[in-house]
């Protein structure tokens, strides 16, 4: 019953509300136009707002791009500042520490003193004699460089030997010989010329300049070099002139020295003295022992084909008075050669010819030597001991040399041996010499030598 009354009330209320609806739906044209204008205005405002928004977005994007660019520039600036700071710190540290060594700058010191040289120790067993340790040789070379162009160099040879009486017999104790091998002042005048003065190593061939124990592949000298003087007191001009850009050189040396002399003042053939006449006489007066100087020189051609492959040829000679009266000349000529075929093969030698006048006529002497060396490292055997070995061989001879019985000795000598390199400057040499001579003092012998160059 209650629900029935409720439904009836709702229906009456609905009818009451439905009756005025047709009156409310009626809108005047004026109102409609006004409403239309309002809508159009609103639409225009919306469009304006949209355009404004697009412009603002574009502006924002540009601003963001500028911000990014500024940030990048800021990062670069910070990096530069960081680098500058690091450099500044490094510079401060460098100032606080000792300067780093620069080799070239270090070498700008204007003088230097040095000692080079070599030392040898020998064992000799000559045929028919007792073997024994034969040589303790110390041969320093002193160098003093004054600036870039001046060098003073002097070489000495100190040898220990048995004591000896004046008649040649053995005396007690021992003596030490101390010889000046050379002493010269060198002045580099220009690119191609050097002036030398003093006790000069004479460029008669090349052996006298390359005979130090650790340079020579044999423990003793070739026989024929005894025919020529090793040094002389005087002056010399020398130099090397390049021939092209391939390393070829024309070497020249021209000198004037006191020259050889007579040990007996006369012109007896056996009195030729190649090593004397140094200018200072035994009575302390200064004079040449004869009237004229001796002149000489060498012309050499050095032809490298590539490193370690080269050929060198040289022709040298000297001539001058030798007896006190100045009557006779001593003349010498030397042809020298040297060949390298790779780092492991070397061959070289000299032909020496001399002639001097005497009271008994002209004396002609000659001799030559040739030697080869081959380092077994060239075989690439991968054996350390073998790779340190060099096999060497030499033939040399001498005709009409002063011997125990006077002039007339003819000697030929074959030498075979080896070199063992402990280091590049410490080497052991072992050689056996087979001699053929009419001089009975010349006999076969075994020589063992330890050489050190420093």
């Amino acid at each position, binding site marked *: 019953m209650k629900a029935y009354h409720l439904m009836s009330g709702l229906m009456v209320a609905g009818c009451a509300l439905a009756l005025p609806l047709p009156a409310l739906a009626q809108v005047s044209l004026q109102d409609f136009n006004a409403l239309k204008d309002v809508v159009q205005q609103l639409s225009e405002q919306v469009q304006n707002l949209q355009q404004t928004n697009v412009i603002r977005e574009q502006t924002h994007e540009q601003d963001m791009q500028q911000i990014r660019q500024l940030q990048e520039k800021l990062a670069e600036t910070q990096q530069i500042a960081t680098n500058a700071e690091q450099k500044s710190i490094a510079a401060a540290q460098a100032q606080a520490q000792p300067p780093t060594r620069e080799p070239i700058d270090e070498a700008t010191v204007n003088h230097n003193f040095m000692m080079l040289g070599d030392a040898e120790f020998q064992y000799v067993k000559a045929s028919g004699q007792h073997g024994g340790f034969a040589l303790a040789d110390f041969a320093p070379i002193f*160098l003093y460089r004054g600036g870039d162009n001046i060098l003073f160099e002097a070489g000495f040879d100190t040898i220990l030997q048995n004591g000896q009486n004046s008649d040649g017999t053995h005396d007690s104790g021992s003596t030490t010989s101390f010889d000046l091998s050379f002493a010269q002042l060198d002045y*580099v005048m220009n690119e191609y010329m050097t002036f030398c003065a003093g006790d000069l190593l004479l460029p008669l061939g090349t052996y006298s300049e390359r005979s130090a124990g650790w340079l020579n592949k044999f423990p003793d000298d070739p026989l024929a070099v005894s025919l020529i003087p090793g040094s002389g007191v005087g002056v010399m001009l020398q130099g090397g002139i390049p021939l092209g850009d391939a390393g070829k050189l024309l070497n020249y040396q021209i000198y004037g020295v006191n020259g050889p002399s007579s040990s007996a003042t006369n012109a007896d053939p056996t009195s030729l003295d190649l090593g004397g006449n140094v200018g200072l006489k035994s009575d302390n007066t200064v004079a040449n022992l004869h009237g004229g100087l001796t002149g000489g020189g060498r012309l050499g051609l050095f032809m490298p084909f*590539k*490193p370690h492959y080269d050929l060198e040829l040289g022709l040298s000679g000297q001539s001058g008075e030798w007896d006190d009266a100045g009557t006779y000349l001593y003349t010498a000529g030397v042809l020298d050669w040297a060949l390298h075929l790779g780092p492991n093969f070397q061959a070289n030698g000299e032909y020496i010819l001399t002639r001097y006048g005497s009271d008994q006529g002209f004396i002609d002497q000659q001799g030559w030597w040739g030697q080869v060396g081959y380092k077994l490292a060239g075989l690439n055997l991968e054996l350390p001991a073998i*790779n340190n070995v060099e096999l060497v061989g030499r033939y040399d001879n001498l005709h009409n040399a002063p011997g125990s019985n006077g002039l007339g000795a003819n000697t030929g000598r074959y030498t075979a041996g080896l070199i063992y390199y402990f280091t590049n400057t410490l080497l052991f040499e072992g050689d056996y010499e087979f001699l053929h001579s009419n001089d009975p003092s010349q006999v076969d012998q075994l020589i063992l030598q330890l050489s050190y160059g420093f």
Partner: protein
Amino acid sequence: MKMRKLILWGAAALVGACLSGSGLTPVQAQPSSKADSTLSPTNSVELTAQAPDTKPAVLQKQLTGAELYSIHCNRCHPERYPTERTAAQWKTIMLHMEVRANIPVDQSKLILQYLQENSGR
């Protein structure tokens, strides 16, 4: 007479060799660095040699200090390692060797530079 012939023949040979000029094979080894140098037990520095592309180019090439070192030092003695001496010592030694081996000053300077740059201290 024999000596006169010897001197004449020797002089003729030298003049002939000089006149041959660039007809001789030029040095062909390339500049060496420490890396391509091999020190053998017998103290020989083996430089790596490379054949040039063209012969005229080689003729124009200037020798480096390393090449000149290999060419000259081995003439008379086993080569000494650059590290054996200081830069100042090499300067004195090179002046000595310049005189002893008749090396032109320019070549001597290149060798010295090579030795100093690789010197011991």
